[in-house]
């Protein structure tokens, strides 16, 4: 069925957007709206599912089908929806609290099952909606209302978690880099399987500047490493620095002084085993530039399509006499009394 070309504005619902002025969520919303038309999927076949949190308000602002569920359970709701209706395009929007604190287990299991949907985890390293408690991605020592002496929980790294859970697609992008986000979103949407996308998102009210090192014009070339499949890992304003492998440890080297591009680590999204992607996920600011882009994109069967193969059947006719019911009820040992 041909779909008329849509514009970003067609994806805006009639609900007033209610994030704090200056919140990074606005940029993400804008970019998602910009990306969707290119996918050529009719609005009615798209569903946004979320949990609870500032980020999870997202579905209300999209003129598609949407489900703002309960805290931490978006992945489970979305999984069920996708199993029942494999033909839909399903997006999950979640936060670092929603997706990794209360919802960590559902994330883990949806990812391993490789249910075909795109997961956007808005990581602002804080609980926004409940007004500023630390989150599982908050750094050690962070002082918040619930950690007045500084947080003592060692943070999770969302991408490491996803890779530990057998993710087939993992990527990272950033709220303010719309172009990069657009690329990543397109790739994620195109991937068959659970596409896990971490989006660094600024909460200007409770954790302002958490990612300033990666957004600041002066530092971003040195703090970000843009991943490109099949290319060596090069970064820096002058693109003169690279990442080399020392056994399983990455190290930063200066290009040119006896080190050529060929000595560098080459990115391979499609590596059969995720060890390279995992290793990349360990590169953290300030020791390393942080990798952005697609860490891993491999093919693996999707749960709901295999399930659908087993059960292939359209909605049954609602007929008064139903041979399949009769067959079911009469299966097994029966006897006749007359």
């Amino acid at each position: 069925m041909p779909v008329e070309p849509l514009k970003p504005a067609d994806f805006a619902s009639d609900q007033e957007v209610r994030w704090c002025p200056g919140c990074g969520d606005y940029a993400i919303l804008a970019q998602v709206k910009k990306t969707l038309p290119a996918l050529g999927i009719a609005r009615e076949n798209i569903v946004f599912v979320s949990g609870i949190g500032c980020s999870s308000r997202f579905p209300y602002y999209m003129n598609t089908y949407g489900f703002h569920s309960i805290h931490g359970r978006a992945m489970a709701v979305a999984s069920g929806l996708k199993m029942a209706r494999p033909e839909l395009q399903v997006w999950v929007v979640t936060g670092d609290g929603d997706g990794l604190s209360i919802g960590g287990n559902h994330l883990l299991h949806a990812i391993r099952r490789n249910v075909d949907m795109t997961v956007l985890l808005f990581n602002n390293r804080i609980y926004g909606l409940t007004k500023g408690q630390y989150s599982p991605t908050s750094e050690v020592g962070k002082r918040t209302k619930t950690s007045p002496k500084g947080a003592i929980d060692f943070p999770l790294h969302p991408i490491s978690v996803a890779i530990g859970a057998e993710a087939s697609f993992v990527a990272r992008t950033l709220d303010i880099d719309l172009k990069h986000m657009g690329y990543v979103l397109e790739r994620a949407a195109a991937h068959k399987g659970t596409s896990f996308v971490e989006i660094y998102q600024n909460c200007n009210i409770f954790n302002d500047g958490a990612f300033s090192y990666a957004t600041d014009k002066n530092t971003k070339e040195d703090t970000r490493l843009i991943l490109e499949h099949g290319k060596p890992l090069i970064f820096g304003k002058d693109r003169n620095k690279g990442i080399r492998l020392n056994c399983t440890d990455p190290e930063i080297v200066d290009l040119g002084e006896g080190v050529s591009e060929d000595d560098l680590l080459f990115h391979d999204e499609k590596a059969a085993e995720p060890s390279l992607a995992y290793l990349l996920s360990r590169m953290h600011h300030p020791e390393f530039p942080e990798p952005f882009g697609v860490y891993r994109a491999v093919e693996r069967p999707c749960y709901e399509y295999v399930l659908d193969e087993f059960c292939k059947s359209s909605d049954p006719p609602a007929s008064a006499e139903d041979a399949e019911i009769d067959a079911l009820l009469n299966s097994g040992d029966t006897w006749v009394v007359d």
Partner: protein
Amino acid sequence: MATSTATKNSAKPVKRQENDTVTVRFCGDSGDGMQLAGTQFTNSSSIFGNDVATLPDFPAEIRAPAGSLPGVSGFQINFSKFDIHTPGDRVDTLVAMNPAALKMNYKDVVDGGIILVNEDAFTKTNLQKAGMDVNPLDDGTLRDYRVHKLPMGKLTTEAASDFGLNTKGVNRCKNFFALGVVCWLYERPLKPIEEWIGKKMGKTPAVADANTAALRAGWNYCDTIELFPQAYRVAKAKIAPGKYRKITGNEATAMGLATGARRAGKKLFLGSYPITPASTILETLASMPQMGVKTFQAEDEIAAICSAIGAAFGGACAVTSTSGPGIALKGEAMGLAVMTELPLVIVNVQRGGPSTGLPTKTEQSDYLQAMWGRNGECPMPIIAASTPANCFDMAVEAMRIAVQYMTPVILLTDGYLANGSEPWRIPQSKDLPQFPVKHAVSNNGEAFMPYKRDERGSRPWAIPGEKGLEHRIGGLEKQSVTGNVNYDPDNHQAMVNERAAKVANVAESIPDLKVEGNPEADLLIVGWGSTYGAITTAVERANSGGKKVAHAHLRYLNPMPKNTGEVIKRFKKVIVPEMNMGQLIIKLRSDFLVDAKGLNKVQGKPFLVSEIEEAIESALK
């Protein structure tokens, strides 16, 4: 008490005493195959033409140490020439395969009842494992019973060792030897059992032949050595003609759900997580992909219900099944289903609580949780099945209510129904209710109002894929009609009222509460759920014994049938038997201000008929 001659299987004529009703219990070690022996005895009895009711009793451990008390497994069958409703209070014939089984079970045998023991198992070691110093076969413990000691091990070995099995394999046939003996005793036909062996074990002929040989050896042994001075017969029951099968409660629930979805014209989606005694619903539905049934074993109970809610949003007939502890976990998500007004069936196969409690035992102690185990004003229809076969009808009903009223519905069954079985006259699809779903469709670009209600109070079920009906739902309070998020005080009150009214409206679509027994009585017994059999039998007996008692059994617990108050207020005395400490009675007393009295039992076991008879007696004193 007439006598008659033997069946064609028998070598010589046997005198058989006619009985109306008999209860047999097989018990032994978990590894002794007692569930199998019991099931086959049941099948044979059903096919013979008796009415039957069964009660398996599993140990909580998977395989407790062989010969130990916690390892004892039992299976009880009541078969009768009349309609029966319970697996029987007390046992007429007990088969005990080892000392532990004997110890745990002999007290349930009627005075003068028959006890068949596998003598070979009464070794010193086995006695010790059962914590017995002296052999109860010798010390007079069993003096009130007719005890028959059979060397079942030895006899089985003799009969079954010619087919190439090793010793262990041969020894495993002794449940069929025991079965053969009891079949002889009660004149059960061997043919259905032999057919079953052929079907199930046919692939390994050695096994099939050895078991058949053991079965026949048991029968022939009785025939030959005249083991029993007296044999029995239970005449065929007057059973409505039709095609029958034996069905457990969980099978019936699973089939009812699958059927219900088709009667709605939809596919079934089950999101579930294994838990005793509900797992077999998931297992049974997992084997029905040909019906378009999709099952999903989720990572936990919360994911299970949430996946079902997602599937319901997508347009599936969605179900989640579990037992009490699982319901406790699902509470928050049940609230989401109430708020989003999506159809969903939630099955609770109740078990002994609180907490992990007694996982393999039965109880009715989750009624209050079903009513009120959620935050906020969060009403849901609740219905309960009364017999194993009734689980089928109530599962279909649950689905009907869910889709017609756009609401989650709780279906309560329990461990006793789940595992218990009865013969079921198989209904024909054309006689089953139909309630095809009509999804909302786009109306010329008219703005879609997802919370605009119809005459039932239901909102439209619009599903992704329908162009023009794009909308958003969620757990925040919504504005009436538009469904937008809304925090207005009056709107909240209005929506709370609308949700309550919708659930109350279900009463318009359910049958009146029937009064069974003697409607002119002063005493009414009000029951719900699996106590149906025991109450019915007790009330029948009381009435035929000249007393006057009425019985009303609630299958719809929320809302209750419209005439419930009128029925209950009509009687001078009201007794409410429950396998809990008094739960439904709280609602009855509060709603109707009637001084109903509870009859309560929390022992992991169903009521005995006699317990209810006693309560009737003392109430009428």
